[in-house]
């Protein structure tokens, strides 16, 4: 058991060494874009404000009366902040596919060596999965830190009377995207990310189906993914089926979806285990 854990940690470390360039590149883009937004947008606001006040001969109070003060809101909905988030999401969906296919289609067929390591093949599976989890949470943590720093930068560029200050929890409520990726309720946060990571497990299973049975496997995998999606969303049909729209509270519906997601996650792990053990081919 101890040896097995040691091997797993080595595999995770090995996968991290292969991922860090990608992760750091996305992080770099996030920091650079966010910083640009934290500096350029307030400067632009202040330039506009000075220009309007000069042309219209307005005092600061008169300007504020007719115009919204600056805050983190326009920054939070700008491309400087939402762009890197979109890039991170697309990047990690791409990486979840790439993390497997590179073993077969890289310059050398590394899958030979990987499958011949004297450890359970599920350790390889979980090491890759953990990489996605680590990557996603690293980016989330960096985005939080960036927003906190952003508030400090912006408040130092915009003069006090032109600025409405928000603390970090308030910033996270400013737009819909933040409410999705940083839910303020712990249970919702946990549930959302469980569903997200179960989707990664399903994607891994689809890839292993394809790598085991090629074209037939791809069709089977897509069928499996559609079945999973239907199953997870099926609690939404309960009110329609029973022709009673008050049969479930919203919280009960969400709980059912989380529960069904966990079942899909377990089935995906078991299927992946079977495919890696009995069907995978180099």
């Amino acid at each position, binding site marked *: 058991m101890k040896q097995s854990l040691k091997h797993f940690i080595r595999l995770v470390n090995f996968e991290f060494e292969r991922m860090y360039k990608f992760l750091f590149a996305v992080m770099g883009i996030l920091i650079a874009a966010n910083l640009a937004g934290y500096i350029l947008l307030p400067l632009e606001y202040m330039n506009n404000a000075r220009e309007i006040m000069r042309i219209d001969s307005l005092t600061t109070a008169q300007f504020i009366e007719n115009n919204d003060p600056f805050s983190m809101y326009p920054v939070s909905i700008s491309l400087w902040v939402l762009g890197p988030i979109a890039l991170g999401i697309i990047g990690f969906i791409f990486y979840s596919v790439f993390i497997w296919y590179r073993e077969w289609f890289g310059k050398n067929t590394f899958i030979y*060596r990987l499958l011949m390591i004297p450890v359970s*093949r599920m350790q390889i599976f979980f090491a890759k999965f953990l990489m996605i989890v680590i990557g996603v949470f690293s980016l989330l943590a960096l985005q939080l830190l960036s927003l906190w720093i952003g508030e400090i930068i912006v408040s130092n560029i915009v003069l006090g009377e032109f600025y409405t200050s928000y603390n970090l929890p308030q910033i996270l409520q400013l737009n819909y995207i933040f409410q999705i990726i940083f839910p303020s309720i712990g249970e919702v946060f946990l549930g959302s990310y469980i569903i997200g990571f179960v989707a990664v497990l399903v994607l891994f299973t689809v890839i292993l189906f394809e790598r085991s049975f090629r074209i037939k496997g791809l069709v089977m995998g897509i069928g499996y993914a559609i079945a999973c999606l239907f199953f997870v969303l099926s609690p939404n049909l309960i009110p329609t089926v029973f022709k009673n729209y008050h049969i479930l509270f919203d919280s009960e519906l969400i709980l059912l979806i989380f529960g069904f997601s966990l079942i899909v996650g377990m089935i995906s792990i078991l299927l992946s285990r079977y495919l890696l053990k009995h069907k995978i081919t180099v």
Partner: protein
Amino acid sequence: MIEVKDIHKNFGRKKVLKGVSFTVNKGEITCLIGINGVGKTTILNAIMDLTPIKRGEILIDEKQHSPEMYNQITFIPDAAIMLPGMTIQQAMDFMKEYHSVWNEKRAKDLLRFFKLKVSDKIQDLSKGNVAKVNLLMGLSLDVDYILMDEPFSGIDIFTREQITEVFSSRLVEDRGVLITTHEISDIEHLIDKVLLLDDGVIMKEFYAEAMRENEGKSVVDVLREVYEG
């Protein structure tokens, strides 16, 4: 002993293996010979549990495959299977980390014998040096069985001589070796058992020395008889 019992394998509708059975004994070099595309590599992959078989059974010392078996049997392929960006040292470290049977002293001896530099990256190696690195990785494991796929394919005469020297050395003594090749002349004198694979089955199985002594035929003579009628 490796026991391959009545294995069948299809690629799509094409039946590649139609009931292949043979054994590989410790202390013997067994050579699997067949024309290209006949399924030699598939057999090696199946023994290593790198591809599933449709039917049949493969046992290693009477046991079915498990992850621990990779400390008992190793596969030396004909192409690079380490990450291209790795140096030879990093590749050796990788093997050492996961294989409890890694023999560091032997690895260093082979490194010297093959005149390889630990700082060289896998992606910069010639075909011959890739073959040497593969041999180094495989032979540095204290395993009971070694499978080798076309070790002489596309490499120069000097590298061939080095590899042949390895075959005749103590490095493979006491181990069961299964090798696929069609460059039989280089190692004919080293082979114990020959398996001729054709049309999905083992067409002929014989001991090379017995064939020479009893029938006065070399392995190549038998090959000609079988394949050229």
